[in-house]
């Protein structure tokens, strides 16, 4: 194990070097670009033996990765924002074909207006595309997810592509000290990819076929089951990861001082650290505050969130997302989890950080205070209620 001072993008690239994909399809987009730059350098210096393919678009980036996966190869690509939307057709293709590709997405705002900074409207708009979706908080977790993602995605019970999301700039471009595992350890943790879902010259296959109404439904059901099965595989993978590398992760959600919390703030990604600090300050003022960081949006942690909120008096969801005409998508998902668990806990939704706008510690403390006073159900930080009249 060595330690290096790396950005989120660079840490992720280090994780991919350890995961040894056979094929990398690369197309640049800010703020993802550094990942593919570093990987090209690793291929150049021979420390990574991958076919590095300069595709001419994001659509081709993922289409190429699907082809590689169908050949039985381990495939990687990376994108962001407009690129993710441009390849959207291929997202569904990869999941429907059960191709366990790993893709890093640098979470970035979507045009219009044009903006290169971080929010999560790109990836959250693709929750229904059938991919596992993880959200990293820091550079170390980014590297670790790069390594864990293949093991989870390629598990035969799962066979589902995996999107690892890093907040644009705030995480992709921020430098931290990162522990880099030894390649022997990584090889022990991540076995070679074996599958029957591939080109086979002994028993030729017709892949990615059509299926009429009767069969189509069954294939969709199986893809859903595969994504649900990821929850157990994530837990098992993190256990083994901790044994080998000594770093522990907490599954679909991460909880901070939620055990006795009256007010719980739910969020995802790199803003979570600031939320935990705010919770500490609230507690110094006698308010029992806690934080849930959602690590996986798919499979969605329905039971985990409901259990963590069971004794709370109120909760808020802070997200860098808005589903125009409704509310934040994470909030919708959290409410569904509570409804299924038979819980009726007052919740508020805070929309912030769109187009990279800063979310300050003061903004987060205001959220906790809003939970005390009962603010509008959906609020835009710095603007106010959503204008719906609630």
């Amino acid at each position, binding site marked *: 194990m060595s330690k290096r001072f790396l950005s989120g993008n660079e840490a992720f690239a280090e994780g991919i070097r350890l995961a040894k994909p056979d094929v990398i399809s690369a197309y640049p987009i800010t703020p993802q670009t550094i990942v593919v730059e570093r990987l090209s350098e690793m291929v150049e210096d021979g420390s990574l033996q991958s076919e590095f393919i300069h595709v001419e678009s994001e659509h081709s*980036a993922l289409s190429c990765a699907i082809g590689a996966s*169908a050949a039985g190869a381990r495939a990687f690509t990376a994108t962001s924002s407009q690129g993710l939307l441009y390849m959207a057709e*291929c997202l569904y293709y990869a999941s429907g074909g059960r191709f366990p590709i790993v893709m890093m997405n640098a979470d970035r705002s979507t045009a219009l207006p044009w903006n290169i900074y971080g929010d999560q409207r790109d990836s959250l708009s693709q929750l229904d595309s059938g991919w596992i979706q993880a959200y990293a908080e820091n550079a170390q977790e980014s590297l670790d997810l790069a390594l864990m993602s293949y093991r989870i995605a390629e598990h035969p019970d799962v066979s589902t592509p995996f999107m690892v999301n890093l907040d644009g700039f705030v995480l992709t471009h921020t430098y931290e000290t990162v522990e880099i595992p030894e390649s022997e350890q990584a090889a022990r943790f991540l076995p070679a990819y074996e599958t029957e879902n591939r080109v086979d010259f002994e028993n030729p296959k017709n892949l990615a076929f059509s299926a009429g109404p009767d069969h189509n439904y069954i294939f969709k059901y199986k893809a859903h089951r595969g994504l649900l099965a990821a929850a157990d595989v994530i837990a098992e993978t993190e256990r083994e990861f901790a044994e080998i590398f000594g770093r522990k992760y907490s599954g679909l959600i991460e909880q901070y001082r939620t055990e006795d919390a009256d007010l719980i703030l739910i969020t995802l990604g790199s803003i979570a650290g600031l939320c935990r600090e705010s919770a500490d300050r609230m507690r110094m003022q006698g308010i029992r505050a806690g934080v849930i960081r959602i690590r996986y949006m798919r499979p969605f942690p329905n039971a985990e969130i409901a259990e963590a909120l069971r004794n709370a008096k109120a909760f808020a969801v802070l997200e860098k997302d808005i589903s125009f005409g409704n509310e934040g998508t994470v909030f919708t998902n959290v409410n569904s989890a509570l409804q299924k668990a038979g819980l009726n806990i007052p919740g508020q939704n805070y929309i912030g950080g769109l187009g990279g706008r800063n979310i300050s510690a003061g903004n987060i403390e205001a959220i906790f205070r809003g939970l005390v006073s009962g603010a509008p159900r959906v609020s835009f930080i710095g603007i106010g209620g959503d204008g719906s009249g609630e």
Partner: protein
Amino acid sequence: MANKTAESISREEFFYGHKACAGCGGSLAVRAALKVLGQNAVSVLPAGCMSAVGFNFPQLCFSNNSIISTFAGTASMLTGIEAGLRAKGYTDFTAVGFAGDGGTADIGIQALSGAIDRGDNIIYICYDNEAYMNTGIQKSGLTPFGARTTTTPAGQNIHGNIREKKNMFEIVAAHGIPYAATASIGYLPDFIEKVRKASQIKGTKYIHVIAPCPTGWGIAPDETVEIAKEVVDSGLWYLAEYENGRFILNRKPKQFTDAAAYLRKQGRFRHLSDEDIAHVIESRDRKWEYINQNFTYGG
């Protein structure tokens, strides 16, 4: 080069049991090409006629490894399959794409251009039936002038398609591709020989084969091969190759057969006026002037 006979081609079938229309030219092109490339061909077919008729679970009609790609993604998926198989240590295989005219000249041209630019070791075969036939005969970039399609109706004001056919062969050649060729299923031995030749060249190969569609062209199912010959004989299509930076014309009709007769026997051209037909013939003659100046005639 036209010395193939029925006896010299493989009796093995790799594409059968499909539900293509009677007289389908596209399915003949796929069938013949796979007989040349054999068991270790990995075929990629985008959304389009051949994937629609061949891949209906559980009725799967390819006996070699085959996969449907996204409509725009024939070439990029070929790239991935070729790279993936090579990375896994395979050497004895051919990654071959079969895309229609819309899938090639319109929605798939970007990915195709990218693959040629990278020099990926693939064969890309465009089976050109001159319109989006799978969706019910809509105009593509390869629909010829005057053709009636369901989006270029032949009315009093506009007589079908007002645009000329996009010149895919030379667009592809302009990339400096190792090998490109035009063909017609009316000259099957020539097509077969070109597929064989492509399979022995490293890098990206492109073959553009005219494959009539009786349903879309308004001809009888038993006229497919004949009309595919006639389009060449009348000079409205040509058999050529591009190799080592040179264009080679493979067949030079001494005298063109009657282009008007070729057009008038097809439902899609039946509305054309004498002026329209004169325009087609003028365009043809201009094209041949260009070919005669820039292509070398040879077998």
